[in-house]
């Protein structure tokens, strides 16, 4: 089964859960006076869930002809393995780490760390250039966000005050 149909299966699951919530559980807490309304909070989601489940089934069962054979396959397994998956995964990990560290470690430390480690993951080894570039960028962005846009960003780690 091709990747797009696997995805359709996952989406079908999501839509079924959504549809279940819309059709069966959502209206439980509805106030009596709202029940006399022609439209309920669940009306639109109910319609959506039907369309979504139908289109997920169409993709899953391959009912829509015309593509499959002649169109290019979405992606082949060999092609996929030649991709730099480790690098991409590491960068995503760095982004998660950045999200978790931004508040506790402060903007300057986490941003410089992210930029330096990010280019290191991609194979850059000119450490001095990396430190200078990331330091400059961090400073400029902090200035823009804090001073020009006026959005508070804690620059230093939490234990150092501010």
């Amino acid at each position, binding site marked *: 089964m091709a990747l797009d149909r696997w995805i359709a299966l996952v989406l079908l699951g999501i839509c079924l859960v959504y549809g279940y919530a819309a059709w069966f559980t959502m209206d439980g807490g509805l106030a009596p006076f709202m029940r006399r309304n*022609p439209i309920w909070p669940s009306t639109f*989601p109910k319609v*959506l869930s039907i369309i979504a489940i139908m289109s997920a089934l169409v993709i899953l069962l391959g009912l829509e*002809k015309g593509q499959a054979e002649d169109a290019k396959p979405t992606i082949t397994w060999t092609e996929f393995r030649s991709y730099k998956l480790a690098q991409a995964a590491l*960068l995503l990990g760095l982004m998660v780490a950045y999200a978790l560290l931004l508040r506790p470690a402060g903007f300057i430390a986490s941003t410089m760390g992210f930029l330096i480690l*990010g280019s290191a993951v991609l194979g850059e080894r000119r450490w001095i250039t990396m430190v200078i570039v990331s330091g400059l960028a961090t400073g400029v*962005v902090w200035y823009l966000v804090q001073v020009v846009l006026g959005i508070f960003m804690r620059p230093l780690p939490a234990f150092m005050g501010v």
Partner: protein
Amino acid sequence: MLEGVLIGLETAFSIQNLLMVVGGCLIGTFIGMLPGLGPMSIIAIMIPVAISLGDPAAALILLAGVYYGAIFGGSTSSILLNAPGVAGTVATSFDGYPMARQGKAGKALTIAAIASFCGGTIGAILLMIFAPMLSSVALLFHSAEYFALMVVGLSAIAAFAGTGQVAKAIMMTVLGLIMATVGEGALFNMPRFTMGLMDLQSGFAFITLAMAMFALPEALFLVLDPARSKSGSSGDIKDLRITREEAKAMAPVVGRQSLQGFFIGVLPGAGATIASFLGYAVERNIAPKEEQEQFGKGSVKGLAAPETANNAACTGSFVPLLTLGIPGSGTTAILLGALIALNVSPGPRLMVDDPQIFWAVIISMYIGNLILLILNLPLIPYIAKVLALPRNFLIPFILFFTLMGAYIGQNNATELLILVGFGLCATVLRFADYPLAPLLIGFILGGMLEDNFSRSMQLYDGVSFIWERPMTLGLLMIALLLVVLPSYRARRAKARQSGVADGD
């Protein structure tokens, strides 16, 4: 109209807005030139900046400047490196790159710049004529018609997704609509589908979603497949002049493609990409025999056609956005999101309530096109240096800017985790050829679609508005036809191929 133009001139020629046009065009050109980064990512990254300007006219002018700057920059990298940064400029590389290989890179850039300028300017004139007409018709619309119109827009986007893709595009649109129902709606005062999480109380943030759908997957693709971000020096660019014969050959092409491109751009779902490919194909078909053979080998007409068409289509795509409040493409969907964030609701009332925004944007399009021509053309040899920027530095910065954009919008670190999660999902979806723009368009239109639907339901005490209002019924029929026809046609073509007789 004259009054409107004067208001527009007054607003657009303020120092701040002029700076916005110049800045937007330059930023757009710079980033649009980087292979693999499309206008949608650039605009998504620029939104936090635009929103914090606080002035809707300035914000829209800035973002529009970035938009056509990016298209222009994309054609530069198509011509110089055969690496289109933007899907809308793929057709540009068919003839632009061979020309550059023959040592005529400067000439190719000039042709592209002039064609873009003409396409954009003629597009802006057409926009000025058609937008007020359309919006005066749209003022007669009732919420039922609005609901139907949005359904038509969304189905048109699915219909243009191409054969075999319609179900996927519908799936993505509905998924966007589903995501829009998460959180507290304006009509009901009760949280829906939040799964008890406080962070979802106000729904998903539009900026986060825009970044996750466009900027993040593009950056990840650059990491995954280094061949995509092929960078290199562009060589010397000299001799920017074109001859009189070349100008003569270009003129009719530019005239035809400005019109064709504009009207393709107006259709929802058919944007710059379709316009440029169609423009190229049409010009090749109507060219005389001997010139036809030149196409693909560095033909002046072959370069001018897609360049004119894609710029005219960019302008055309502003028509449904400004008059109906319905975005026809991913880019205009992002612009719509930015406008809503700034408390402006685009639609037929825009011309009445905020004429300065409407006209300033149109006037700024002229200025933007002029700036692209006079500022960028002499600067191109220098700007092209950005193509040599090392990707090891570039990619972490793109990722950092997506993170910052999401953070500034919400001031909340959880938003960053949502961004990474959705970004990962979006990348997987891209692998499987699921179009992502419909999802964002669905998400942005979701709230309005439901509001209009609910309002008509309340007014008519049920769904009777569908058959009691002929215009609503008509529009909904069109929507149904749009969705059903492509798959029916594909089915019939398939049946014919396998030797089965047609039913009709």
